[in-house]
């Protein structure tokens, strides 16, 4: 029973949500909508679980004075501060919560993402070495798209954007669609295996 019951629940739930996709009948969709609302509530509780887990894991590190424990103190202080500010004083514009978001989180996230430009430039310099024919194809296409996608490409040759659009719409699209169809077929077969109980690793054990 310990195996059969979870398998049955998985089959019924999976079958129900698949059928909801294909059966546009009012009562059926109303039931599905109720389940969806339950799912939204359950997912929201996952946040509480996540926060509790962060507190548990990081407080252990602080207690044992493990490596980089000082950073964990900052993390937990930040977590506590934002929860207190958000729940206690609101999250709208003009609140301290929003001020911290716009003046601390926003610039920090933007800075982290901006660093990518430097690393991508450095990686491109090292990665695009024409060692083989395949590498040549990749490198030349990358350079064409890179230059053709910015105004200076059009300034140098006015048909550059058309060439780039052709690359995006024909070879790129063909390869991308083939990968997508392959991946989708794989996902369908895995999903079916889970539904009919052939794939049971989600239940743990062997």
């Amino acid at each position: 029973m310990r195996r059969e019951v979870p398998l049955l629940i998985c089959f019924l739930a999976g079958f129900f949500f698949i059928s909801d996709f294909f059966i546009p009948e009012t009562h059926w969709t109303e039931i599905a909508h109720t389940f969806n609302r339950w799912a939204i509530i359950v997912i929201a509780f996952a946040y509480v679980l996540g926060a509790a887990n962060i507190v548990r894991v990081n407080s252990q590190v602080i207690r044992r004075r493990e490596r980089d424990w000082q950073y964990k103190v900052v993390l937990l202080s930040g977590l506590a501060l934002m929860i207190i500010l958000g729940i206690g004083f609101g999250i709208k514009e003009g609140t301290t919560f929003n001020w911290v978001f716009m003046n601390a989180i926003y610039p920090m996230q933007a800075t982290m993402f901006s660093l990518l430009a430097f690393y991508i430039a450095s990686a491109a310099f090292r990665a695009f070495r024409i060692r083989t024919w395949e590498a040549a194809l990749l490198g030349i296409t990358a350079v064409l798209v890179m230059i053709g996608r910015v105004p200076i490409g059009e300034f140098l040759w006015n048909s550059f954007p058309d060439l780039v659009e052709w690359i995006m719409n024909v070879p790129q699209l063909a390869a991308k669609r083939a990968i997508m169809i392959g991946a989708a077929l794989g996902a369908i077969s895995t999903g079916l295996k889970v539904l009919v109980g052939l794939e049971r690793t989600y239940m743990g054990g062997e």
Partner: protein
Amino acid sequence: MKDRILKILESLEKLDRRIIFIFIAGAVALPLIFPMNIDFSVTPPVQSFYDSIQSLPEGAKVLLSCDYDPGSMPELWPMNLAAMRQLCQKNLKIISIQLWATGSPLAEAAFNQVAVGEFNKEYGVDFVNLGFKEGREVVMVSLGNNIPSTFPTDYHGNKVEDLPIMEGVKNYDDLAMIINISGGLPGTKEWILQVVTRFHIKLASGCTAVSAPEFYPYLQSGQLSGLLGGMKGAAEYEKLVGKIGLGRRGMDSQSISHLVIFVFILIGNIAYFSTRKKKKRE
């Protein structure tokens, strides 16, 4: 002499990354200080994005999903502002949601800047921010059944059913189209898979440059009615909407930095081929 050139080329092949960083910093910063304003044309995916909004009748209701965070703001914030501008110019009603928690303050700031600041639109009548709801694809599907029960209150805590803009809005059937500003997952792909194919509603997307190639198949199949890819897409769109913004201003920096990367790739390959024979001999 030949040995000296070879030595220079060898050192170029192993160029210190900090030198590349300095050049990139200059290529990004200098054009922002001294703009060149290189002109550019509008590409078909951007034109389609603009046309799909322009074809809507005045007063139609549009769902604007701002699914991004500050990390992708340089690319997505300009297109978010430009999209709001076009929607306000056309007197379309904007219902905004966010599937990323960090997207809510950004959407709110965009509304304050464009809808209120530039067009003097009224909250609850011309636009509404329903805020963030966790649940990703489940929320998307749930909106297809009942929007007010999925978002009972808006970002400011008002009851959604009491707002004039929400009058007669039950699900996707009551909306003219969806515009998604997408920074990743959940984003455009999920909107297509869960909503477009199922509820048959028009979707236009603005996304980061790195994810744009992924959406070309959907654009060609007609599942996407327009696509803004990265800052260049935003810049082209700003040109169509008629107000120069951050996208256009970033184009010179992007042009020069791409050119600098190209020069480094070229130098790296010249150095590689020139020193290859020597390495083989050794």
